[in-house]
């Protein structure tokens, strides 16, 4: 049979735990971490292989991609722009409330955010024939490495 711990020692440990938890809970508002994600618009699909400059028409692109975010006049040509915006942000804030004791309260804030874009542009002649196209998938770029580039 195991020897039982003295009652006083057991209560002392619990009190220590309670005090530690209460102390940690007082950091509420002093230490905070924020994670944010913003997505605007649906995914922009990569360019289909069947799209060919000089052959594909405005009808084909509208049927495949739907309505664009923007239509741009290019003096003799016009462009359809499809765009998805994807934002990630984070911040860490640490403050030590010592104003009552030292009249200063040191704080540290670190923030970072990264906005990436998926984008497709189709340029047409005035007859509605595809003259050029371009695609970029920014959201596939790695978050951490892209941020520090």
């Amino acid at each position, binding site marked *: 049979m195991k020897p039982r711990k003295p009652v006083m020692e057991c209560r002392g440990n619990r009190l220590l735990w*309670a005090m530690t*938890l209460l102390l940690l*809970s007082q950091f509420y508002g002093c230490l*905070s971490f924020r994670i944010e994600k913003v997505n605007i*618009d*649906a995914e922009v699909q990569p360019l289909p292989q069947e799209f060919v400059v000089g052959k594909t028409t405005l009808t084909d692109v509208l049927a495949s*991609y739907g309505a664009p975010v923007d239509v741009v*006049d290019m003096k003799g040509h*016009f462009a359809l722009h499809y765009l998805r915006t994807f934002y990630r942000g984070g911040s860490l804030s640490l403050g030590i409330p010592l104003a009552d004791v030292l009249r200063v309260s040191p704080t540290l804030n670190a923030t970072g955010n990264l906005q990436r874009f998926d984008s497709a542009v189709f340029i047409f002649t005035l007859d509605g024939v595809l003259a050029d196209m371009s695609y970029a998938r920014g959201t596939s770029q790695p978050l951490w490495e892209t941020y520090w580039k």
Partner: protein
Amino acid sequence: MKTRWPGIGLLILMVWLSGCALFGRGKEYRPFDAKALERVKPGETTGTEVTQWFGAPTQVVRLSNGNAYIYARTLSKATGVWLLLVTLVNYDTQHDRIVFFIDKSDVVTHYGSSFEAEKAGYGMPW
């Protein structure tokens, strides 16, 4: 002797779990009807008919060979959770869009549509 530890433990737990959650929904509404697209026939439908059926466009783009009428509306959903030390926020915005290409004779030559607004969702930022 009656112990006080469960009460103190509950109090600490309540302090730790203090926080709140947010669910938000924002809409930029324009009353165009997707079903009216069934009436649009390229080469026949006029720009005047488009504005009668869909209302005033959100944006008009002047092109060398006519105009583009863009109709758009937005649905945004926000989710936020504030815990003791961590705040998690997620926003998702999606659009319904229709674009009509109208030539100089005021006839619709092409149109395209995307209805994604109802796909906006609540969620966590990962």
